[in-house]
Structure formats: C-alpha cells, structure tokens
C-alpha cells in the first residue's frame, strides 16, 4: 500500500481520471472485478458463485462496522420517539411504577389549555427573532470581515469564540450584565438618556434579553458560514456591476445576496433546529428558568418543566411529540419551498 502512496505522480493521474466521473456515480461502477466486467468469461458460474460469497462477506463486514452506532442511534433516538407516543397516552408520574391509560386526554388538555397557546406564541417569537437576528447580524458582520483590513483574522476568531463556550456560562455572565441594579447594561442605557427596562421582572423584556444573548452567542457561526460564501464570489462580478453604474447597495441586493442563497438556506435550516431545541435550553435554564410569569417558556422548556420539575412524564411526552411534529413540519417546509429559490452557481 505504501508503494501506492509513495508515487505522487501516479496518484495525481488517478485522481485526475477520477474527477471526470460524475461524483454521484454509484459506488463500485468502475471497480475492477465489479459487475459487468467479468461476466463474459468461460467459467461464468464459478465467478458468480464467488461473487455471491464475497457479497455475503461484504454485508457481514458492513454490519460489523455500522451496528454499534446504528444500535445506539436506534436505542436513544428512534426508540424514544415511539415511546413518547405511547407515554403521551398515559397519566403517569416520573418514577412511578403505575400509570393510567387515558387515551388522547393529554392532547385534549394541551390543546384546550390557554397556557399552551402562550407557550406556542413565545416559541414562535423566540424562534423567528433568534433565527432572523442571527442570520441578519451574521451577514452584516461577514461583509465587514470580508474587507481587506488589518486584524480581521483576529476579529473573526473573537466573533466566533462565544459559539464554542458553554451556554450556561454565557447565560450567567449576561444575567449579571443585565442585573437592573448592579449590572453594566443599565448604566450604558442610562448614559444614552433612556430609562432602562427591568429585564428581570417584565416578561417581554426577559424574552428580549434571552433573544439578545442567543444572537450574540450564535452570530459568529452565521458570519463564518457567510464569509466562506462571500469568498467564492468572483471579484469580476462586483467590478462589472460597478462599471454598469450600480451602487454598493444595489450590487449587494442584486448580486451578493442571490449568490449567498445556498448559505442562507443552510443557516435557516440549522439555526432553526438549534434555536427550537438544544441550544436555547442552556440559556433559558441558566437565565430565567422560563419566567418571569412564564414569559420565556418555550415548548422545549415546557417539556423539561413538565417532566423533571412537575414530574408529569406522560404530559411531558405529549408536548415532546407535539414539538417534534412541528419541528419536522417546519424543516420539511423549509426544504420544499426554499430550496427551489436557491441559486447554486
């Protein structure tokens, strides 16, 4: 093997030849000894028998390589999805040995409880604001970082850094900054001549506070994705637009933005997923615990609170099932309607 790796020129020609094949060609098409190349020989049946044996061996190796991972994904991702559906039909407290089958009562309760609609409303506001904010500010920062400026490598690292930090730690630091009495934000706002809101006690402002922190933590991710996109736009396009008399804003709207649409699409899908689920829990739990007066309780947070604070496991599974269906719907809609509008250059 090392002999092959030690021959760069041969490797290079091989690689070149390879690139001429469409990347989506099914595996094994040009593999020597693959189907179609040796079928015409005289001892055809022997070859076929041998191939069947190799195939069986291949399948066994495939299973040996994949089963640990697939079993774990099955056990801890797929099994719970189905279990949730079953649990959602029970009135059952976490840790209790007995449960009562109640049919669709949990769903009826959820849909008729006015609180649920409030949580849904908060989820929509939170998701739209965090996704929109992250993508918009990320794009803005990316266009700044895309200029040839001294220190832009450093700035890129600084902008991205919060993304790798623990959400709990980030939540706690900002919570102190937002402290109405001893925090650093109130004096800054007062310096502009505005009376600072009470971020801790007013539901609307508390929600705004968590949204601000979420955008701060994630905008670096969006910026770096956009930056990668901006760097593959040919410079000539902008020069041609400038020659045609287009201003910077016009160029941005008619050239840059459409060419960035694959990145925007990718970000919409990934940021929506993380905002509606994993990433927001750490912030909400470390900053507001869903309060004040439920002002920052999203559906995702309701699952946690019903299950692990109130101990109503059956009802928690109901909310989990509802959230998963919503999430699935949103993602599929995004894929179906947005991907068509994406320009791939």
């Amino acid at each position, binding site marked *: 093997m090392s002999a092959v790796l030690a021959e760069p020129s041969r490797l290079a020609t091989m690689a070149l030849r390879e690139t001429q094949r469409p990347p989506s060609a099914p595996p*094994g098409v040009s593999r020597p000894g693959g189907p179609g190349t040796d079928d015409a020989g005289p001892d055809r049946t022997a070859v076929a028998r041998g191939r069947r044996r190799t195939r069986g061996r291949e399948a066994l190796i495939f299973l040996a390589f994949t089963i640990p991972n697939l079993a*774990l994904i099955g056990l801890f991702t797929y099994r719970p*999805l189905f279990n949730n559906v079953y649990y959602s039909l029970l009135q059952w407290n976490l840790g209790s040995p007995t449960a009562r089958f109640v049919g669709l009562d949990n769903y009826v309760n959820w849909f008729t409880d006015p609180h649920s609609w409030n949580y849904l409303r908060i989820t929509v506001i939170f998701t739209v604001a965090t996704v929109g904010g992250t993508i918009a500010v990320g794009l803005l920062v990316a266009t*700044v970082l895309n200029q040839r400026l001294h220190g832009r490598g450093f700035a890129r690292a600084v902008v991205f850094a919060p993304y790798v930090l623990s959400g709990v730690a980030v939540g706690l630091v900002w919570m*102190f900054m937002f402290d109405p009495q001893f925090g650093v934000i109130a004096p800054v706002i007062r310096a502009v001549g505005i009376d600072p809101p009470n971020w801790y006690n007013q539901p609307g402002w508390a929600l705004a506070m968590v949204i601000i922190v979420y955008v701060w933590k994630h905008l670096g991710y969006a910026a770096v994705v956009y930056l990668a996109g901006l760097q*593959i736009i040919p410079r000539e396009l902008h020069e041609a637009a400038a020659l045609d008399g287009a201003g910077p804003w016009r160029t941005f709207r008619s050239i840059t933005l459409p060419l960035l649409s694959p990145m925007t699409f990718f970000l919409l899908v990934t940021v929506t997923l993380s905002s509606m689920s994993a990433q927001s829990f750490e912030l909400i739990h470390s900053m507001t615990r869903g309060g004040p007066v439920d002002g920052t309780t999203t559906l995702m947070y309701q699952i946690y609170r019903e299950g*692990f604070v109130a101990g109503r496991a059956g009802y928690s599974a109901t909310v989990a099932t509802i959230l998963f269906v919503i999430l699935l719907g949103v993602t599929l809609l995004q894929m179906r309607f947005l991907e068509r509008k994406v320009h791939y250059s």
Partner: protein
Amino acid sequence: MQRLLSGYLPLLLAVVVMMAPLIWMLISSVKTRPEIFTVPLQWLPERPYGGNYTEVIERYPFGRFFLNSVIVTAVGAGVKVLLAMFTAYALVFIRFPAKKLIFILIIVALMVPPQVVIVPNYTLIADLGWQNTYLGIIVPGLGTAFGTFLLRQQFLTLPRAIVDAATLDGAGHWRKLWHVVVPISAPTIATVALVTIVSEWNEYLWPLIIVDRPDMMTLPVALTLMQNADGTNNWGVLMAGTAMVVLPVLVVFTLLQRHIVAGLTQGATTG
C-alpha cells in the same frame, strides 16, 4: 476615510461587543463584594482580589468537577469519533443493499432534538440504575449522526482509485480503513474530533437530569449548582466559577480556532 467608516469602525465595534462580556466576567471575578454591589457602578477593583476563586475551590469539589468533565469528554468524544469513522467508511466503501435507507435514517436522527427524547431515555437509564454514574452520563449520547454525516461527505471526495489499488494489493476493509482512508482524511477527522470535544464539554441538559450528586457533576452542571447556592447574591463567586469553566475552552480555541471554525461550518459549503 471611507475605509475607516465602513471598515475599521464596524470591525472595532464587533470586537468590543463580542469581547465585553468576557472581560466583564474576568474583572468581576476579581472584585470584592462591596466593589460589586455598589451604585454607581465601580468599573475596576482597587486591586485584583483572589478571594472569589479560593471560595469556589474551598466550597465546591472543583477538581472533581473538572475531572468528571475530562472523563466524560475524553471517553464520549473518543468513542463517538471511532463510531463515526467506521460507519462513514462502511457507508461509502462497503457494498450493502439498504445503504441509502440507513443514510436517510442517520440524517433524520440529526433532526431529533435532545429535549424530545429525554423522558424515555431518562426512564431507561434510571431503570438500569445508571443515575449518577459515568455510564449513565456517557452512553445515551454515544450514537453519532453528525460525525458520521461529516466524515461520509469527506470520504466521498476521496479518489476511489486509491482504495481500489489497495483492494488489488489484497487489503481487507480493516486495513483499508486504517492504512488508506484514515491517513488521507486525518485533517477532517481531527476537525470532527475537535467539534465533538467542544460539544461534549459543553453538554448540559442530559447530565443535568441524570446526575444530582455533586461529586458526579460535570462543569456546566456544577455552574447551576453554584447558581442555586449563591444566586444573584454573590456574583463575584459565580463569575469566578464561570471563568474557571470558560477559560480552558478559550485557550484551546485560541490555539486551534482555524480547525474548529472549519469543522463547525463545513456542511455549509460542501452541501
């Protein structure tokens, strides 16, 4: 002038906004109580005060938190990367009938958020008696859809001829994986490993619900323990604890940021 207004000024603004909270955390962690709880705000301490840090170490088993985080991250990330390598290799290079379906199942798993599956997973782990154990913290998160997806995308770009040449030399899949595919893909594997380490280190929801004994807590969960004990009455201690959780990650990030950034944003450009 134009470069200053549309270039350096916004650049500076971005850097300040992104750095300010971390600087505020560091400054507050070396302030005394009266210096923190004062109106109007006192920006800097008279002199750096180390008492908050010693308080964290004296009142909490901080070394133990750190060790727990290291164990959970090392084992969790190590196993995950191995599993991702095997699965991705099989998906790309081994012939199997239902490969496409398996890949779709992995992609869909990427879309299942951890919150949705906590109740059934908690019930299973509690039935096994694995609460407050490393097994209980680590095992449910070991299946990896994300790593498998990224490595598969990378393996697909490898020139097939290299792998075919190894087949002709009589190498089996095990040998081809370790002697051909892994060496050429080392940069991508390193990136996947880094990304996995970062997310394991910051993992919060699952360890929060499966651990309630302080000596088994990881650092992010320990921060919640400190928050519950000190609340908003002792920002100095809380900021010291937060700094001790955040600083190691910042140091590693500074050293390796190029790879981390590349890894976390892959998928976007490789589609």
